[in-house]
């Protein structure tokens, strides 16, 4: 399988009060198309930072990142935003749904940036919500849903544009055991049935077991 993500000599450091804090040190790895990779490691190991770099919401201090053949570390802010809109589906630990929008409207949100008509958007949203099993909750607001349901809406929002890559940052971190299992099963299904490439950050070994591959980070180094 060809590599969909190529991380080449990537380093990242942050400036905090005149101090340079290294977070990632010369990282190199590839992710193949259709893979399901779990990035594990203790807090502060740099896994979320690496995920943000791959998703194009942060830029490396050094090195190159290619996703689907696009050198994203060189894109401008505007080009990166457009690229994220059609290439990346992001699932957050705290769901991050817009509270004033219904499940349907939250899932529809990324489609507003496309040229799809209203009826086409409706079809896409309904499909995405049916994939996550929430067809009957389309008109519910986030506060009317359980945590697991909110995360499923967030997954539907990540899926709705049919992105190259699904990025999940601790997707089960805020869920109870049963809901977490449901979400992991859903991600596994998306990978196996819908052939979605997934990169997931987790510190839960049970969650990582669902992935096909596991990589560990420790103090900014891949081990």
């Amino acid at each position, binding site marked *: 399988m060809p590599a969909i993500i190529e991380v080449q000599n990537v380093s990242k450091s942050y400036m905090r009060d005149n101090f340079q804090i290294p977070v990632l040190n010369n990282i190199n790895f590839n992710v193949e198309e259709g893979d399901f990779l779990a990035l594990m490691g203790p807090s502060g190991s740099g896994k979320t930072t690496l995920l*943000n770099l791959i*998703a194009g*919401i*942060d830029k490396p201090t050094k090195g190159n990142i290619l996703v689907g053949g696009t050198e994203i570390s060189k894109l401008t*802010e*505007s080009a990166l*935003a*457009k*690229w*994220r*809109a*059609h290439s*990346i589906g*992001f699932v*957050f630990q705290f769901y*991050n749904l*817009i*509270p*004033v*929008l219904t499940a349907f*409207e939250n899932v*529809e*949100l*990324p489609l*507003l*940036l496309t040229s799809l008509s209203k009826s086409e958007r409706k079809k896409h949203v309904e499909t995405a919500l049916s994939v996550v099993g929430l067809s009957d909750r389309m008109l519910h607001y986030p506060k009317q849903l359980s945590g697991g349901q909110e995360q499923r809406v967030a997954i539907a*929002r990540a899926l709705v544009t049919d992105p190259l890559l699904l990025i999940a940052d601790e997707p089960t971190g805020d869920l109870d055991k049963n809901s977490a299992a449901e979400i992991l099963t859903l991600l596994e299904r998306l990978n196996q049935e819908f052939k979605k490439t997934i990169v997931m950050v987790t510190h839960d070994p049970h969650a990582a077991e669902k992935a096909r591959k596991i990589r560990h980070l420790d103090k900014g180094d891949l081990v």
Partner: protein
Amino acid sequence: MKIIKLIIKNSLRHKLRTFLTILGISIAVIAFGLLRTVVTAWNAGVEASSANRLITRQAVSFIFSLPYSYREKILKIPGVTNITYANWFQGVYIDKNQFFARMAVDANTFFDVYPEFLLSKKELDDFKKERTACVIGSDIAKTYKLKIGDVMTIEGDIFPGRWDFVIRGIYKPRDKTTDATGMYFHWDYLNERMEKEFPGRANQVGWYVVQIKDPAQAAEISQKIDALFKNSTAETKTESERAFQQGFLAATSAIVTAMNVISFVIIGIIMLVLGNTMIMSARERTREYAVMKTLGFERRHLTGLIMGESLLISFIGAGIGLFLTFPLVEGFAMVIPKGFFPIFRLEPITVIFACSAAVFIGLVASVPPIQRALKTNIVDGFRFVG
């Protein structure tokens, strides 16, 4: 779902805060509208003044009169097409708190020089024929429920005694800026009684109104008139009607300036109120903006969302404020003494000003939250704890 729907939903997220902000804007717009109306009313005389009319008054002070004999001499100056004259009569009609202009005028020329007072030919003829006749403005007729043939009894103060006038005409204003609250009667009637009761005050004119052919000659003719009476016992000061009206306002210019300043300070206050609301809203939504950026929303989208919300609140507040200002101005006009402000209404320019201010405020108040939303990068946005 369209972006506009998201803007509306965002506006209604904190209903009480949005309501209070809209209420604040509405009250400020009402205050702005009332103040501007007062300022406009104050300047109404200046606005209504004609370019081809000069006012000749006593050089020392307006309260001193001029000899009636000046009339013929002024009329002979080249460029002067007509002349009329008047005396401020004042007096009390029914209630001393109810003020409106009451003047003795030259019945033969006054309405020729002031064509903005529309009077039918019959009414004008009837007025000219009868020594004790008077003409009143349509607003006064409406206020006091007066009609042609009614007698107006005025208790004189400057010119003591009881004065009875028969209404022979009700004039209508030609323009919006024309005063429809005046009352005009024969100068001859006044003069006759002065000759009998106070001979020293007879044959005196309060001021002359000189009609000229070419407004460009106003300064030249003014100089000629004043030169005619230089070194006399009653020297004159002639100026354009506009300058004359402005001279009246000069005494109160500090108040008008203060009101002008306050009306614009109010706009600044609205801006701060709305700006504060928008900054709080944007701060609370820092994480949501980070999410939207992650989804691919660009700077222009976020700018549109925040600016749209700011403009929406601003427009609703201004709309409600303006809607309420109309009846409030009318109510205010009924409370203030009649005739104190002959023209007291919400002018279109005030409405345009308030609408423009709403757009301006909406735009300016959205700048700080937009800057904040755009400046915060996605990673910091997700870390933000509100």
